[in-house]
């Protein structure tokens, strides 16, 4: 009986979605020639897809509900057992060889692949750093920033302008780009950080869009829609590099950036500052009542995230050698955000993996390309529903203390 009613509700869902998608999926009119195309096959696919998905959905929702009630009942026991995934990240015996393998592969990559692969990976790594940077703002401090692309653009334009107009070197501009990003972050952040979370999100979305319009309209400085071309690639002690060597060089530079970012984020996470960010994310009022200076702490997170965006903005400009305002639209912010969401807000490993997968998958599965944004959207919804902590949940550091040992002995 239960099975029948289960199937029945799936069937109803399927019919409902067939109804919903009918005018858009099945009908296609050409008003110029006055013809209609009826795509009945789509209807079939929707029906089958909706039926299966709704079965999975129901199962997942039940599991989710069970999970919630279980947690209440058993309090902590179920959470105590670390899954293999967590062990993998915690146990040096397990993660060291794996890490070694990944590092070795990463280092070898440019020597065994073509330049095209290296270029793809450079951009993927740029996204990794963007994801890690946004992770500081969104994941750690809980400030939903929908205009992250603005800072990326600030970095890119800083380098483009300083390089093409004033002939400044890449290596000088790299820190300048990061600092300009951070500075703009502070300037924009200052008035808005007392806003509530969702308002903040919308205002940052506004800033992101305004930045793009400014690049477009302020011709004297940003060269408008024409963009800025002939931006220099990074040099290395005056060495002449052809494009392939320069790409390989940028690849290694990005690897260093990734490691550097992970290092910094990791250190921040387990520090006075990082804990304050997380506390702010968890409960703003309790956090300030415990003596944390909200404005300062938020500004720090916002500026640091912006710093990273500015930094990789410089590298982005040096890699493409041409930038125009079209590269810095909202979609980029949305993509980076979905990486942070998928990876698990606050989790470093998760964000790295999510950024790589979300970027490289469409690259290697070209068929997937068209569905990329559709999948990104769906991923954001599904993650919020079923795994808000992300694919790789954030494992909290435990601190050792002489007394802890005693306590454990007494208990155990």
């Amino acid at each position, binding site marked *: 009986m239960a099975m029948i009613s289960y199937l029945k509700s799936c069937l109803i869902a399927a019919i409902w979605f067939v109804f919903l998608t009918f005018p858009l999926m099945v009908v296609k009119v050409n*008003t*110029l020639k006055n013809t209609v195309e009826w795509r009945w096959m789509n209807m079939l696919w929707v029906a089958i897809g909706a039926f299966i998905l709704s079965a999975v959905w129901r199962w997942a929702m039940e599991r989710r509900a069970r999970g919630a009630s279980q947690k209440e009942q058993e309090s902590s026991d179920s959470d105590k057992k670390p*899954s*293999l*995934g*967590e062990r*993998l*990240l915690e146990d040096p015996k397990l993660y060291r060889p*794996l890490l070694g*393998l*990944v590092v070795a*592969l*990463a280092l070898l*990559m440019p020597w*065994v*692949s*073509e*330049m*095209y*692969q*290296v*270029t*793809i*990976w450079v*951009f993927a790594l740029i996204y990794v750093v963007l994801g890690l940077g946004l992770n500081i703002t969104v994941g750690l401090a809980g400030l939903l920033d929908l205009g992250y692309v603005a800072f990326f653009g600030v970095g890119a334009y800083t380098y483009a302008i300083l390089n093409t107009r004033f002939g400044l070197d890449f290596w000088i501009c790299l820190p300048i780009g990061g600092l300009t990003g951070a500075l703009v972050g502070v300037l924009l952040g200052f008035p808005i950080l007392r806003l509530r979370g969702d308002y903040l999100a919308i205002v940052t979305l506004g800033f992101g869009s305004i930045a793009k319009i400014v690049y*477009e*309209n302020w011709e004297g400085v940003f060269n*408008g*829609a*024409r*963009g800025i*071309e*002939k931006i220099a690639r990074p040099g290395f002690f005056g060495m002449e590099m*052809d*494009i*392939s060597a320069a*790409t390989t060089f940028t690849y290694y530079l990005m690897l260093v950036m990734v490691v550097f970012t992970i290092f910094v984020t990791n250190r921040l996470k387990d520090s006075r500052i990082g804990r304050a960010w997380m506390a702010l994310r968890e409960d703003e009022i309790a956090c300030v009542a415990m003596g944390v200076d909200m404005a300062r702490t938020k500004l720090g997170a916002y500026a640091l995230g912006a710093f990273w965006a500015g930094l990789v903005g410089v590298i*982005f400009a040096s*890699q*493409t*050698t*041409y*930038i*125009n305002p*079209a*590269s810095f639209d909202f979609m980029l912010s949305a993509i980076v955000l979905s990486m942070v969401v998928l990876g698990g807000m606050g989790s470093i*490993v998760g964000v790295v*993996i999510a950024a*790589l*997968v979300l970027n*490289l998958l469409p690259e*290697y599965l*070209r068929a997937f*390309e*068209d569905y990329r944004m559709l999948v990104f959207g769906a991923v954001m919804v599904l993650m919020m529903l079923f795994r808000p902590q992300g*694919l*790789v*949940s954030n494992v909290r550091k435990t601190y050792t203390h002489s007394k802890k040992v005693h306590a454990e002995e007494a208990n155990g």
Partner: protein
Amino acid sequence: MRKSVMKSFVVIALLSMIVPAVGFAADTIKIGVAGPHTGDLAPYGLPTKDAAMMLAEQVNAAGGVLGKQIEVVPMDDQCKPEIATSAATKLVSEGVDIVIGHVCSGATKAALGIYKESNIIAISPSATNPPLTQSGDYPNFYRTIAPDDDQGKLAASFATDKLGAKKIAILHDKGDYGKGFADFSQAAIEAGGKAKVVLFEGVTPGAMDYSAVVQKIRREGADAVIFGGYHPEASKLVGQMKKKRVNVPFIGPDGVKGDGFLEIAGDDAEGVYATGPMDVSALAGNKKAKDDYVAKFGKEPGTFFDQGYAAMQTILNAIKESGGTDSAGLEKALRGSYVDTAVGKIKFDAKGDAEGVGFSVFQVQDGKFVELK
């Protein structure tokens, strides 16, 4: 949990090892075709790809060029500069001998440096941005379409000389292409001294309506409107001008001259002027190309088909004449002699622009763009 982590690592490990096994025999000539093949702008890129492949097929069936088979390597850049660099590097690493592309000016700018360093010639069917040839930065660049400044000049002279406009309003969509066209028109009008630019303003693509700016046109008493941009904004402007009874001639660039505009603007399109590449449909070479296309794909070819086809023709000819794919030889051949192509008899000048192509003014008459002679 466990699975997802493991899987992710496996995916990363696998991805990093992927080395597409492309080992071709050396007796093919590889021609890269780069442009938007997916995404919003795909309609501008696919016709060129189809043209190149179709022509390659015909040549191969007839024994190839210099006894070698032609292999077309299509590469998608979605018209985005950052993807164009990857696409260009991929073409270079696949060892193409020459490239047709890219389609959008921005993507072309990003990619050209890479071809230049690898000593590869690129012929674009559609990148009309003037500095690409005029700056002299890219000696390896050619195009089978005339640059935008010609188009802007033509629009300006048409408005002042043919239409006798004295007060001209110039609008643009703030984009690279549209703003460029608007700038050139403005410069030409001011240089000509026959008319005044009474309004020069950007409009926001995707804005809900343009009625405010239409009212502004009326207030300035403009007797002609020149618009730089693409067909969605143009049709919106034309529609609202008609609704607001602002009855002045409307002149757009080749981004307006297409079926998209006719379709969306509908009845409002009637009487609108647009500049565009000269009508070559009467040429035998053009007719044949189009007929072949219709026979093969069963539909009319799209935008830049003619130019893409012509680019392929000049390349094949240059290879034949120079007897190989050496860049210096190709260059000489491309600049050397006229070739009969789908856009007429052309050869390239020292800067890389085609001699023999140009723009004309068209007008929508009875739902079709008709060339004004």
